[in-house]
């Protein structure tokens, strides 16, 4: 029979707290006071290393080099890490249960539970001045350097050390802490530093002195980031809101010695722990200044959780929390709440007492809530006995309800099964219902995988209908790492297990195999990977040059193709590189696109080795236009010319390039003669410019030299002369011979310049049919009408009449219409 649930309850003014013993620890008596300890949240593991500042009797069996021990909450040794690096200043845990170890010289290592690590450094400043302390949380850290600068990292996946504003202190702070980014107004981490008599709040931008009456020797931020507990040097515990705007409570402990640990228990009370040589005292202080004192024989360690605090003693793991309200309602002595009555009714029912019926009748109206409460309370219960009783009570109550949605009941039963499974001492995750809700089942499964509890993870996942891929992948990786069998056997074992799940990603498994020194196994496994894109990075690192390029192309992701191309380019001799790329069209295309923008020399080499003359020629041609120096320009053109000439299909281009060299030479000459800029103009533009400059003969010469068509030449000259308003010359030009473009363009161009007088000169040279409307355009309606009349074109004549604004002329036109009509 389990002890009465209220047996561990402690009253603190109007509310109850309970201390539940979760585990008797598996470890042998450990003197916690001699260690630096870091405990992970959500019932996670505990890491400890001998504190080198504390005296310890050197015993025979103890190794000289320190060891980081990682224990489960039940005291089971999960991993030990031989420590051979520099001094550790702080340890902490990430959300993924990786152990973060901060070293004095500014390096941060992150260990997983298998003892493998990755590391990064905090930058120059940290290296030069050393790191003195570090605050670590689930997804980031803030380090304090020897010269009191703060360096923050807010993402462990992509650590980017960022220096925060200078706090402006010159002596070690009394204590300091951080407010996590998710709880600050700015969504960036804020650091609170207690120095002198005050607290300075530092963020990325600036440091603000809060001007408080301190000094403060200890502080802690509540789990929801809203409140700050401060311990003053006079022994006062002071709770304020984290923006220092609201004073919440004060309590005098009468202890001049700062507590060893100051921790929040949920969000409404604070736990202080003094480690004195004579006694170990824990003081829990409620929001209204009430307190409870607990004593321990040996040193303890407090791990704050979102809904309470885990107390690790030398031989026990306890959980201290405020009694959840449904539990309190049911079990509190003398409670008459509906849920308590329901629970009681079940007891009567089982004892076949008629009082059961009375109870149910009494709470009829609130029965639904009572059932919900019992379910909820079951969730908060650690003892399986009471979980069962409470669920039974709920099920009993449920029978009296007409329509009750049992979903909640079923879910809770599921949750309890999962929680009980992971709470089992061998697994050692003493997770509470509130924590489980926050953590999500997926993360819980991840934690199980990281502890290599694949089978349990698998069972829970299939029980909760969660995807099992990650578990299988992790299992396969672990299998490869641990296995000593030959690759054939491992490969078959893995594929057999995983083949049920067709779309599973093999890339990570293959990568593990490769890292484990089994490249052949890696290649074999990689063949099962359905995503080409995922194969590529591994293939690159496996030196599978050609295959990685092929797979990248297969993926259709050009970014990936580029990645491989650049890798190969850097790694291989040029010839070899080209050989690999050459027969792959997409790779060739992308290389060209890249080179055109970034690396023309490489492009030249590429075209040359592949004997792509026309492309080479085009490239030379294009480059020539970028040259400002004429000589250079011509020499580039000559290269292009040579290449074009080699190809019989490109005689036209060759001819054109030849011409372009001639044009350049001509233009240089013109520049010399006329002191005007010509280079860069086309032939037409050159002629045009000559005309404008009054160099008709030069223009004519260019025309014959480059076989410019008569028509084009006439247009250019016409436009040039009109532009310079050289009407005399224009007239001469028009008369020089019969125009190949007719005379309408002359009229039109003059009209564009609003030179109606000039325009009229050429109208009569145009086709008779076009004349009337041209006259209309220059406003000569009389002439227009006459021409239409001559043409015997009635329609046009009427149109002229319609457009004519002048009544006198209009009259004349009308006459002509009548005349034409009568004819």
């Amino acid at each position, binding site marked *: 029979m389990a002890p009465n649930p209220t047996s561990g309850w402690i009253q603190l003014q109007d509310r109850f707290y309970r201390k539940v013993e979760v585990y008797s620890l598996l470890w042998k008596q450990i003197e916690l006071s001699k260690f630096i300890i870091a405990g992970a949240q959500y019932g996670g593991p505990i890491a400890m290393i001998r504190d080198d500042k504390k005296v310890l009797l050197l015993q025979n069996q103890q190794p000289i080099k320190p060891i980081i021990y990682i224990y489960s909450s039940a005291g089971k040794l999960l991993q030990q890490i031989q420590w051979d690096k520099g001094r550790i200043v702080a340890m902490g845990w990430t959300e993924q249960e990786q152990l973060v170890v901060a070293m004095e010289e500014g390096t941060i290592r992150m260990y997983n539970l298998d003892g493998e690590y990755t590391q990064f450094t905090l930058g120059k400043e940290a290296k030069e001045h050393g790191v003195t302390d570090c605050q670590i949380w689930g997804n980031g850290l803030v380090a304090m350097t020897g010269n009191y600068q703060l360096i923050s990292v807010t993402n462990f996946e992509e650590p980017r050390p960022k220096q925060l504003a200078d706090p402006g202190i010159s002596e070690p702070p009394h204590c300091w802490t951080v407010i996590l980014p998710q709880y600050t107004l700015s969504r960036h981490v804020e650091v609170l530093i207690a120095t002198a008599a005050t607290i300075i709040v530092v963020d*990325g931008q600036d440091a603000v002195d809060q001007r408080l009456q301190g000094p403060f020797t200890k502080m802690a931020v509540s789990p929801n980031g809203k409140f700050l507990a401060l311990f003053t040097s006079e022994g006062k515990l002071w709770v304020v809101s984290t923006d220092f705007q609201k004073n919440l409570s004060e309590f005098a402990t009468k202890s001049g010695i700062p507590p060893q640990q100051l921790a929040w228990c949920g969000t409404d009370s604070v736990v202080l722990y003094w480690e004195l040589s004579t006694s170990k005292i824990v003081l829990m202080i409620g929001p209204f200044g009430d307190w409870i004192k607990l004593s321990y024989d040996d040193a303890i360690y407090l791990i704050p959780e979102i809904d309470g605090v885990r107390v690790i003693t030398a031989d026990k793991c306890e959980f201290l929390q405020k009694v959840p309200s449904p539990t309190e309602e049911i079990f509190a002595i003398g409670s008459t709440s509906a849920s308590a009555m329901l629970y009681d009714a079940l007891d009567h029912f089982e004892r076949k007492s008629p009082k059961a019926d009375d109870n149910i009748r009494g709470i009829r109206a609130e029965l639904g809530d009572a059932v919900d409460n019992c379910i909820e309370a079951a969730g908060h219960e650690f003892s399986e006995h009471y979980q069962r009783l409470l669920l039974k009570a709920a099920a009993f109550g449920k029978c009296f309800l007409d329509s009750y949605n049992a979903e909640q009941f079923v879910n809770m039963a599921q949750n309890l099964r999962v929680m009980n499974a992971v709470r089992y001492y061998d697994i050692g995750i003493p997770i509470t219902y509130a924590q489980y809700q926050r953590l999500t089942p997926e*993360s819980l499964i991840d934690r199980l995988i990281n502890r290599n509890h694949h089978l349990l993870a698998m069972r829970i996942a299939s029980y909760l209908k969660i995807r099992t891929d990650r578990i299988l992948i992790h299992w396969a990786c672990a299998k490869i790492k641990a296995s000593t069998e030959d690759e054939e056997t491992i490969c078959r074992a893995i594929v057999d297990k995983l083949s049920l799940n067709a779309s*599973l*990603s093999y890339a990570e498994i293959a990568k593990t195999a490769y890292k484990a020194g089994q490249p052949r196994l890696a290649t074999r496994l990689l063949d099962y990977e359905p995503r080409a894109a995922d194969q590529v990075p591994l293939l690159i690192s496996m030196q599978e040059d050609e295959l990685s390029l092929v797979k990248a192309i297969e993926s259709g992701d050009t970014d990936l193709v580029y990645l491989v191309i650049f890798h190969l380019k850097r790694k291989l001799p040029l010839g070899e590189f080209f050989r690999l790329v050459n027969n792959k069209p*997409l790779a060739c295309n992308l290389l*060209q696109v890249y080179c055109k923008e970034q690396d023309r020399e490489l492009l030249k080499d590429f075209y040359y080795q592949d004997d792509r003359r026309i492309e080479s020629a085009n490239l030379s041609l294009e480059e020539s236009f970028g040259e400002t120096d004429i000589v250079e320009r011509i020499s580039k053109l000559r290269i292009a010319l040579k290449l074009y000439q080699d190809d019989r299909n490109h005689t036209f281009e060759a001819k054109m390039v030849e011409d372009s060299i001639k044009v350049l030479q001509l233009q240089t000459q013109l520049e010399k003669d006329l002191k005007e800029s010509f280079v860069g103009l*086309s032939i037409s533009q050159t002629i045009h410019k000559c005309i404008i400059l009054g160099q008709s003969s030069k223009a004519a010469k260019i025309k014959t030299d480059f076989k410019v068509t008569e028509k084009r030449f006439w247009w250019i000259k016409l436009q040039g002369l009109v532009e310079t308003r050289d009407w005399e010359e224009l007239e001469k030009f028009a008369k020089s011979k019969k125009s190949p473009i007719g005379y309408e363009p002359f009229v039109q161009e003059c009209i564009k310049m609003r030179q109606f007088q000039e325009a009229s000169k050429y109208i009569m040279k145009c086709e008779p049919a076009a004349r009337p409307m041209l006259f209309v355009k220059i406003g000569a309606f009389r002439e227009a009408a006459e021409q239409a009349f001559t043409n015997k074109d009635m329609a046009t004549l009427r149109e002229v009449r319609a457009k004519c604004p002048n009544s006198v002329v209009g009259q004349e036109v009308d006459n002509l219409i009548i005349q034409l009509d009568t004819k």
Partner: protein
Amino acid sequence: MSASHLGKTPLDIAKLRDAVRKRLPELLDTVRGKKGLILDPQLTGPLSLIAEISILKDHGVEKIYHLDDNILDTDCKNLIYICRPKLKYMKYIAAQIRKDRQDTSKRIEYSLFFVSQRTMLCERVLEEEGVLGDITLGEFAMEWIPFEDDLISMELDNSTWKELNLDGDTTAIHQAAKSLMKLQQIYGLFPRIIGKGDSAKALADMLIRMRREQAVVEEVSSSTSRQNPSLLNSLSTHIDQLVIIDRNVDLYTPLCTQLTYEGLIDEIFRIKHSFVELDPSLVGTAPAPGQSVSAQPAATPAGASAAVAAGKKKNYALNSGDKLFSQLCDLNFAVVGGLLNKIAKRINENYEERHQAKTMAQIRTFVGKLPDLQQEHQSLRTHTGIAEEIMSQTITDEFNRMLETQQNLVAGVDSNSEVDYIEELIDKQEPIVKVLRVLCLMSLVQGGLKAKVLEHFKREIIQTYGYEHIQTLYDLERLGLFNVRTSSNASRAAYANVRRTLRLIVNEVDEHNPADISYVYSGYAPLSVRLVQCAVQKISAGHAGGSVPGIGLLVNVVGGGSSGTIGSNQTASQNGGQDKTDKTTVTGWKGYEEILKLLPGAAVDEVQTVEAKNEREAKATAARAKRSLGSHHKKTTIVFFLGGCTFTEVSAIRFLAQQDEGVRDYLVATTQMINGSTLLESVIQSTPFDRGESVEQV
């Protein structure tokens, strides 16, 4: 108020925008304090459609710069870059960081957000430049820019078509696939994917493969997918199919001059990201609807917003937030003048109502209507101004000769006057893009030019526009736009065949009451949209048999009567019993294989199904989707243009939507909006000389 015209269809396009809009402040808040924002010049337009400048200000943006090769001298302590993952940008950023590093008194925090995805390539370049450690990288997912409820665009650079077909750079296909996957995540799988063209095929293949691979990704990150359920495991309840049109299949359409109102605005003023630059006198002082959005994040460096003085052009938003514009945009320009006139009269009458207002109550109602009336008035003034400006071009002989030439070409009317006309254009040194547009059209429809003619034109062009165009012409040849007609070249016959079978030319067009999509080009029906009609409306196609040449066999589709496309069922049933049900069921290309063979590139027709394993789950998701969106029988067909889409094509598809009213909605999705000029400009070479000039103009 930005773009409040969205979100009125079952697909609720506004939610595409809102997702991006929500992300922007989040992204800005990753950096503490005041910050400078450096934007990819290509993104300022799209961004301004998503969020107002005030959002930026509210989140601490003090200054906005354009990302270019100038080194900024700024006193901002935080710089946020937002750009597409292009190599040149990485170089600019690296140069900036290195420069700032020299000044040790400065301590600047840099962050860079890639639109829409970070690439390993860019990371590598940053690493090689030695600045990767100094910059925080992130992503800013902005796959789609919604313009209208029936038009969304990826707004890539104009060169997509050229990259795909000339450079062989398939990056755009990958991007398009990613963006379409995003749509599938939101709306569910497209039940059917059909398409025409080699790139379309590649895209469809990639979509299908990505779906398979996505399953892997989602399984791996199951925890995230739980919070944000993607619909990749169920067929879409709203979308019936995706039609992919590879731009390369129909180059005829963009090369022709667009004749709808919006199309002509684009041809003459150039519409950029749905904004058009207008003379301030046209826009007027009162903010027109949507106008406040158009305050593009100040483009010029050093916040030269003050420099946006009078005389400088103003941006005007063209979208259905402007009610008048939404009435006009799809109309053939020929009827716009009359309509504007009518509206002017109505507005005038509305103003006159004030004289009838006798009682206080009547006056109050009138005054209440005033703001709307004034806004409408202002909008009318603007559009009248635009229309006049367009008119001044369309009445010129030059414009009409060009139009006539184009229409002769697409109609297959042979005459030699085209050659003379084009030659004259060159002789007059008209802009090269104008010349090439009509020349390429000629080459395309005639299956190439005679060797002699071709060489003559090449020579004329090179001599007139410069030797750099040796390359331009070579590229056009490789793109199949400017070729020699060979005896074996069947494409001349091919176009004629397509023209006949798909009845691309419709002689009687009533612009006022169009009965067919051909109204958008006054007689030429865009081939691309005809293909869509084949796939979606199941217009009955006659077989292009050699025995019945010359007669449009699709009379029933476009028959002059009011029955329109729904056409005579009689003919349809004669042709093999395609009954009305075909209109709602989706059968892909079935029945049109022969026509598709006439056009270049592969055809795709894939049906996506949901595996039985997931069926229950899928049904549940589908049911959920249905509940949340309400049940509609009307399905939406997505038409995706790979390589760009013209405004006329959008109008033509809207016309289809009108015909299919109640049966089917359409959503046009495109890589970007193009016209013939922007299409060719990506190929036309420029020398540093030209570029220097053009910069000044800008």
